[in-house]
């Protein structure tokens, strides 16, 4: 404990976070468009992946100049893609969700651990209900009640879809 506080004092520059300049947005497309598309396919399925992709990049373009730090742009984009996938599932749910607005994209913490794209490809292959439940639960941390509301089913049905989806994923990953 003590030694770490000493080393901090002797190297104070380490505590100042480095701000990386924002590169031209084209760079983000060149380097990360394929990854974003893979996440969208996994989260909402092939048929709607393009919509999710468009919403993701338009939201990113909107927020980009105010981002402030170009440190983890890939993580930032993939986080937005997950939020847009959730919006997509919500919009398809029968009932509107009176929950708080999804966090402003610029505020999304970019240091969140990233999901493994390999797994998301498998998620994309699940039946629609299971796929949606798994995405809403793990890409966005929604509680069962909100997943149920987004999917327009009972909490029990949501829990069942999630359980079935996970069981299938475990089997495929084993």
């Amino acid at each position, binding site marked *: 404990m003590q030694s770490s506080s000493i080393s901090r004092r002797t190297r104070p520059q380490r505590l100042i976070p480095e701000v990386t300049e924002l590169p031209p*947005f*084209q760079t983000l497309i060149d380097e990360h468009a394929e990854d974003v598309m893979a996440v969208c396919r996994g989260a909402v399925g092939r048929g709607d992946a393009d919509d999710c992709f468009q919403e993701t990049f338009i939201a990113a373009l909107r927020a980009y100049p105010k981002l402030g730090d170009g440190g983890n742009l890939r993580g930032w984009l993939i986080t937005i893609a997950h939020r847009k996938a959730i919006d997509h599932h919500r919009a398809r749910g029968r009932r509107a969700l009176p929950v708080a607005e999804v966090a402003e994209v610029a505020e999304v913490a970019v240091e969140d651990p990233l999901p493994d794209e390999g797994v998301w490809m498998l998620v994309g292959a699940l039946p629609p209900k299971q796929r949606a439940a798994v995405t809403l639960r793990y890409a966005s941390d929604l509680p069962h009640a909100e997943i149920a509301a987004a999917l327009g089913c009972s909490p029990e049905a949501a829990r069942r879809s999630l359980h079935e989806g996970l069981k299938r994923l475990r089997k495929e990953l084993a």
Partner: protein
Amino acid sequence: MKTEAAIDRLKTRAAEEGLLDVAYTTADSPFGPLLLAQTKRGLVRVGLPNQDCDVLLANLAARVSPRVLEAPAQLDDVRRELDLYFEGRLDRFDLPLDWRLSGGFRQRVLRAIDRIPYGQTRSYTEMARKAGNERAVRAAGTACGSNPIPLVVPCHRVLRTGGALGGYGGGLPMKQGLLELEGVLEASPGPKA
């Protein structure tokens, strides 16, 4: 392949929603590839063949907006006029310009340069005077050298008093070639000593 189509749609939509702050493309020229960049106001940057594209684009991201996208269709007019110019079939560009990358005296010098007619030349001293300070000849030279929109703002038409070529951001052979194209200089038969 599918992602490429999605990217094309994205760029169309970005332009429609006013999110394309800087559109750029590359274009061929007899001197090598050019970088063309434009904002909603007009042409903002022309990169000459000897200049580094990545550096120019990073600079646009920092000074204009980081919403910089490669969008060739947005620059069709610019490319068409430049093609005609290089074919000797256009003697006056009719393109909206965005002057924001140069300020103050430099911008006044560049606006004066913009009025030099095709096939004519002026001296750095004349440009300094037109910009309001006859004694700032060296500053006028610097303004020419920092011209963000070369070719279209024809800094190649500015020479030293007495007719020496002076300098050019794209290299002196390009300045020579442009003046030959415009009939100011006779075409040189071969490489000069």
